[in-house]
């Protein structure tokens, strides 16, 4: 009687699960579609059918870490921020506050978005596909996460350095205009995740999709004894590094409430 046929079971009140009614294949599809609609997932995402989830990559791993360590089922069950585990992603108090306030948290994998004719110098260009951000979601904040390991290739690059994130404005005729977004100081001796506040850039890209030319990361030694160096030279993990340490962006969003009423009307 516990044969799993439809994915829908009813407890008979005596802690036993019995088949309430066996649904046929068509009804099963209808029920599945109804649940998907309710969750706002009417269609299976592209290129995911039959593939095992790539949860070992840094971005899904980050959200899984939040799911397992930093979420309460509801407001009453939520444990105080200082009691929750920071996990391996070094979640700060500010991160936990953003998590608490968010209805939706999205991660965006970094792409090496090469544009022909653009001189990159020694910095790194990162591009993020933010086209799936629902327009009705209000952006609370966004951060760029970079993994820094202690494997520094050149001894001359050891010590303190500054990472600066710029938004790329123009890439015409090989020239580049950059707008300062955020900067962080770090030292080569410390391993872990570095975060930069890129809320302004995400806000701009969501409101101006055609203006999304990505970020430019520039790294300078703190004493300015050397000109701009490559991020990999001070231990920043790039696209060729381990999958669970690759750069990604995380966005925190709050629902405006308009969507829910729209869905209800539609249904």
């Amino acid at each position: 009687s516990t044969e799993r046929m439809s994915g829908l079971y009813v407890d008979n009140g005596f802690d036993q699960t019995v088949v309430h009614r066996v649904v046929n294949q068509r009804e099963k599809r209808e029920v599945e579609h109804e649940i998907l609609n309710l969750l706002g997932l009417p269609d299976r995402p592209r290129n995911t059918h039959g593939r095992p989830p790539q949860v070992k990559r840094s971005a899904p791993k980050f959200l899984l870490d939040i799911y397992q360590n930093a979420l309460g089922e509801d407001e009453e069950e939520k444990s105080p921020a200082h009691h929750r585990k920071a996990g391996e992603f070094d979640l700060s108090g500010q991160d936990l506050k953003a998590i608490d306030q968010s209805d939706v948290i999205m991660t965006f994998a970094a792409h090496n978005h090469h544009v022909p004719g653009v001189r990159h110098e020694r910095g790194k260009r990162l591009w993020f596909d933010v086209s799936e951000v629902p327009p009705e979601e209000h952006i609370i904040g966004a951060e760029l996460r970079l993994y820094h390991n202690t494997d520094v290739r050149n001894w001359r690059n050891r010590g303190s350095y500054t990472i600066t994130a710029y938004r790329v404005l123009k890439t015409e005729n090989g020239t580049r205009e950059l707008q300062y977004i955020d900067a962080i100081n770090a030292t080569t001796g410390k391993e872990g995740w570095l975060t930069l506040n890129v809320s302004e850039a995400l806000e701009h890209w969501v409101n101006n999709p055609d203006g999304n030319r990505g970020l430019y990361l520039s790294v300078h030694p703190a004493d300015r004894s050397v000109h701009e160096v490559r991020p990999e030279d001070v231990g920043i993990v790039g696209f060729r590094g381990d999958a669970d340490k690759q750069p990604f962006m995380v966005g925190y969003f709050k629902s405006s409430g308009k969507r829910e009423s729209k869905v209800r009307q539609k249904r």
Partner: protein
Amino acid sequence: DARRKKKSESTNWDHRNNPYTDSAMQYHSRTCKIQTLYVSFRDLQWQDWIIAPDGYDAYYCSGECNFPLNAHMNATNHAIVQTLVHLVSPGKVPKPCCAPTKLSAISVLYFLDESNVILKKYKNMVVKSCGCH
């Protein structure tokens, strides 16, 4: 009709645990209370894009709100009035409704496409308690 049909079909079932033949279970099933409804993402074969959870206990409210409404039903004052008016005019006025009195949220983690991932909180998805309204 459904009950009668089920009864005739259930000859191979264990009658001690059969909600259609066991009088004690029939009594319990008639009273307004919370019932388990587990939605399994794994059984629906959605685990290739829904990373977590495997499924969730949605629950639902089922049963009747009969006089006298006891404490287990979390009856509102209006539900008591509704019950009494129903007793006076059963053909005209319906009984109070067995419905959720407290709901909670679930969080679902899924792939938006092959590289971007989303963690979304769905409010009012899980019934925490039922009552007569």
